[in-house]
């Protein structure tokens, strides 16, 4: 008999079905070996996929939500899922099937459903009853955004030290110019020559 756990938030529900890992002395109600997962969003088609797809999809939502808050045009693209903002309120999700000749599933969700979905994922992440294998997901954030995220700091780190050095050099040398009086220097030289 398989265990079934549901995580609900308003109009979104995430269902996890699986078994405990008895070889690891786990409790009966634990789920470590996930056999099936379903993400139900009211008025939208059911989302389900392979076990190894759950974490990349969750990760995509987390990365996208971070980009949404930090950038003006957030885009997440991967082999499995694309998430793009249509505007500030609507997000387009494209779920690509790993099977050939299967059309991708296109969903449009608003901010309310996006936050419901993320909260379901949070509940799953925090649940002591489910263990998910968090595989490494290749960084598929579009180059434009990556440039925006990383290069800003790199560029500043690169340009700031020489800029500060040149500026301090100018500042110091200008103060010496202020104290230096060429007339005094000429008089001194003349006195030395007379001697």
């Amino acid at each position, binding site marked *: 008999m398989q265990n079934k756990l549901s995580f609900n938030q*308003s109009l979104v529900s995430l269902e996890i079905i699986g078994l405990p890992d008895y070889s690891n002395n786990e409790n009966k109600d634990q789920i470590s070996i996930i056999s099936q997962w379903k993400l139900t969003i009211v008025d939208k088609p059911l989302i389900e996929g392979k076990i190894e797809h759950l974490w990349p999809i969750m990760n995509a939502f987390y990365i996208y939500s*971070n980009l*949404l*808050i930090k950038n003006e045009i957030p885009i997440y693209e991967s082999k499995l899922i694309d998430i793009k903002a249509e505007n500030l309120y609507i997000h387009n999700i494209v779920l690509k099937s790993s099977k050939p000749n299967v059309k991708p599933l296109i969903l449009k969700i608003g901010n*309310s459903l996006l*936050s419901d979905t993320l909260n379901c994922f949070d509940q799953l992440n925090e649940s002591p009853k489910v263990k998910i294998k968090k595989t490494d997901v290749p960084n598929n954030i579009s180059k434009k955004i990556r440039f925006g995220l990383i290069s800003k700091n790199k560029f500043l780190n690169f340009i700031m030290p020489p800029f500060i050095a040149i500026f301090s050099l100018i500042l110091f040398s200008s103060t010496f110019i202020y104290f230096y009086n060429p007339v005094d220097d000429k008089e001194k030289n003349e006195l030395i020559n007379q001697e």
Partner: protein
Amino acid sequence: MRKSYVTNNIKLNEFDALIRITVEMSKYLYPYIREILKSKEDVEENSVIWNDFNKRFIELIKERFNLDSIRVKKLLNQTENDEIIIKSLLILSFCISNQGYQKLKNFLFDF
């Protein structure tokens, strides 16, 4: 930004406490936050909720913030403040989990 004549820097423990209060309030107010976000998705159907919220938001800003500040003026400008309000509501709605305190802290440091 606040209408205050005393410039006190917030202490770290006060900052932490404020974040904890905000997270707890967001958990409690999530259904309302969600409805406000939803009202902006289909403005024709639910424009009343968004308009009421925006009106109250502006009232509170005028009451408690320093109106001479440029950043406050930006908050009051209805064409510009949509993005700020939506992003602030989204941050609150993303932080209602048990780890919401840490999430909100991270969002604020990156904002």
